[in-house]
């Protein structure tokens, strides 16, 4: 009976092609779009404009060689172009030859970058001079640029992907499960079922299983696209990933059920669910981190279910870390889920 209910849900769902397409495609489009736009923003790079001269000597060659060894992006431009770029304010540091020696111009508006670049250029200059004179090369301390907390996969797409996975779960719970409940009640589909001997839990479980498999398919598509297009792979254990996903699914599905008990009509439900959805989405680090938000807001957000869920998800998926240290966060998620579940049971109505 359960199987029949489940397959029927799928069959009817697959007939609504437009809805199905968008449910499946929307997260993928978001990932492809934002992932491509912000593809290169992995970490800040230092850049230097090098003005090219026609009379380049051995000294210039040695300096260029030394510069290329450093973690520095060198843009070699002819004088006129370099000047134009400088005038536009895009250049942080510019290295010029003035006959006898070199001159480094630093942009006062980009002092942090310019200062670091100046240090590196001077280092390169020392190295170049030593090489030219045959003196022992001064030893450097190695430099490495990192994005703390996202060591292994620092690009935006890999930050976004777990966020979208989480967002999918939230929208599945709030919009699919909750909305379907309200509209079934509103249109009397529940009433028609209630006069049959079908146990109600079979109907509900069939629906839940259907939503669950839809989510699994969605997640699989998203992970596959992430892997094929951006080369993002799960860094942690698949078991832990599954564990976190299952917890989130349960929590947000319970949310949908609970909220559906508070609305009489589909319109009413749309308002209520958006009221919950948008703050969750905007404040919980789906699209961007909240590191620069005020401390009190960060504390509030940490108490909502989505942020700790995404943190744990990213810890496993992006950093390959275990779930150790996420005990409190996952407890918060579970607590929200349980509270929502009890509220759902209390408020649930068939008619």
């Amino acid at each position, binding site marked *: *009976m359960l199987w*029949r209910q489940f397959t*029927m849900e799928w*069959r*009817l769902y697959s*007939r*609504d092609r437009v809805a199905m397409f968008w449910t499946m495609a929307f997260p993928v489009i978001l990932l492809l779009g934002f992932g491509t736009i912000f593809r290169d923003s992995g970490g800040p790079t230092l850049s230097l404009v090098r003005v090219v001269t026609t009379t380049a000597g051995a000294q210039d060659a040695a300096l260029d060689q030394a510069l290329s060894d450093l973690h520095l992006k060198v843009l070699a431009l002819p004088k006129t172009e370099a000047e134009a770029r400088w005038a536009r304010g895009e250049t942080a540091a510019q290295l010029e030859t003035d006959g006898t020696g070199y001159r480094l111009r630093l942009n006062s508006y980009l002092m942090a970058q310019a200062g670091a670049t100046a240090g590196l250029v001077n280092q390169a200059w020392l190295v170049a001079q030593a090489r030219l004179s045959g003196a022992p090369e001064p030893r450097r301390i190695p430099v490495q640029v990192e994005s703390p907390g996202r060591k292994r996969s620092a690009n935006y797409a890999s930050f976004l992907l777990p966020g979208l996975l989480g967002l999918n779960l939230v929208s599945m719970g709030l919009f699919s499960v909750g909305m379907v409940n309200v509209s079934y009640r509103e*249109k*009397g*589909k529940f*009433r*028609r079922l*209630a*006069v*049959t*001997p*079908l146990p109600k839990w079979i109907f509900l479980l069939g629906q839940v299983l259907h939503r669950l498999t839809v989510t699994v398919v969605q997640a699989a598509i998203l992970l596959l696209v992430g892997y094929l297009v951006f080369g993002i792979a799960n860094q942690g254990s698949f078991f832990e990933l599954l564990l976190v996903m299952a917890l989130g699914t349960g929590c947000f599905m319970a949310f949908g059920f609970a909220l559906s008990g508070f609305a009489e009509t589909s319109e009413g439900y749309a308002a209520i669910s958006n009221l919950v959805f948008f703050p969750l989405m905007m404040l919980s680090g789906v699209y961007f981190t909240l590191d620069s938000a005020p401390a009190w807001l960060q504390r509030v957000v940490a108490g909502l279910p989505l942020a700790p869920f995404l943190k744990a998800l990213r810890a496993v998926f992006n950093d390959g870390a275990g779930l150790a240290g996420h005990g409190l966060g996952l407890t918060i998620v579970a607590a929200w889920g349980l509270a929502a579940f009890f509220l759902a049971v209390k408020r649930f109505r068939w*008619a």
Partner: protein
Amino acid sequence: MTESALRLRGLRKTFPKVVAVAGVDLDVARGEVFGLLGPNGAGKTTTLEVIEGLTEADAGEIEILGLTWAQNGREIRSRIGVQLQSTSLFNKITPREALDLYGSYYPKRRSTEELLKLVQLEEKADAYHITLSGGQQQRLALAMALVNDPELVFLDEPTTGLDPQARRGLWDVVRRMKAEGRTVVLTTHYMDEAEALCDRLAIMDHGKVIATGTPASLIAELAIPSVVELTFEGNAPDPAAFEAALGLRVEPRADLWEIPTPDPKTLLPRLLEAAEAAAVPFQQVHIRRATLEDVFLHRTGRSLRE
């Protein structure tokens, strides 16, 4: 022997703002078509919903096929068939799938083909529900109520919103149910439907049963088998003066006067004479047999359609 199919005693149901069912007693025998007739808001649908187990009664006893909800809920559900006032289905389910699906909920079931044929939906068997006409959707709802070969069928306003031809089609299906030995309980606010289909009736108003009996006996109890109607062009004038002159009760309706009488033959000449004397500007005179509408009118002072 007529074992009881349905037995209600002192059924009450109050909603926050309205008393929907105010103490209803009913007995429906097996094999009969029983009608609940009354205007909108009389409590017919609530009565049905309480019987069907959709709404809990505040007080009263319900016995369905000798069973009670408290003890035999599951068995009752598998032995009754229900058509709700509006049956909502998925937009993209086909009649065949709907019958297969709902049939699968029951231990005993009729074949989908047989049901499709019964309600003449064979040609639309694989069309999406949303593409069916109102009458076809209603016939599907009827077939779904029969999917478990029920002994007792509840139909809530089965023909509301249908065109005359579709209504006749549904009446045929209900008659077939009776012929198959099922008990049918239906609600309607159409007196012609109640007269055409029902073996017995309960007339409901304000949550109470105000009369029960066969359509013929209810009309006979009126003791005014006929009604003479004077029709007017436009609105009917105030009959007070004419009533006094005639010495008989005259009921004003929108564009006509109704004069109930046990003996139209002797009334008619007197009526025409009086009308002539009072210069009543009537257009036509009709004599008709009293109907259930008149029964309702007589008992409540209001028309069914108001």
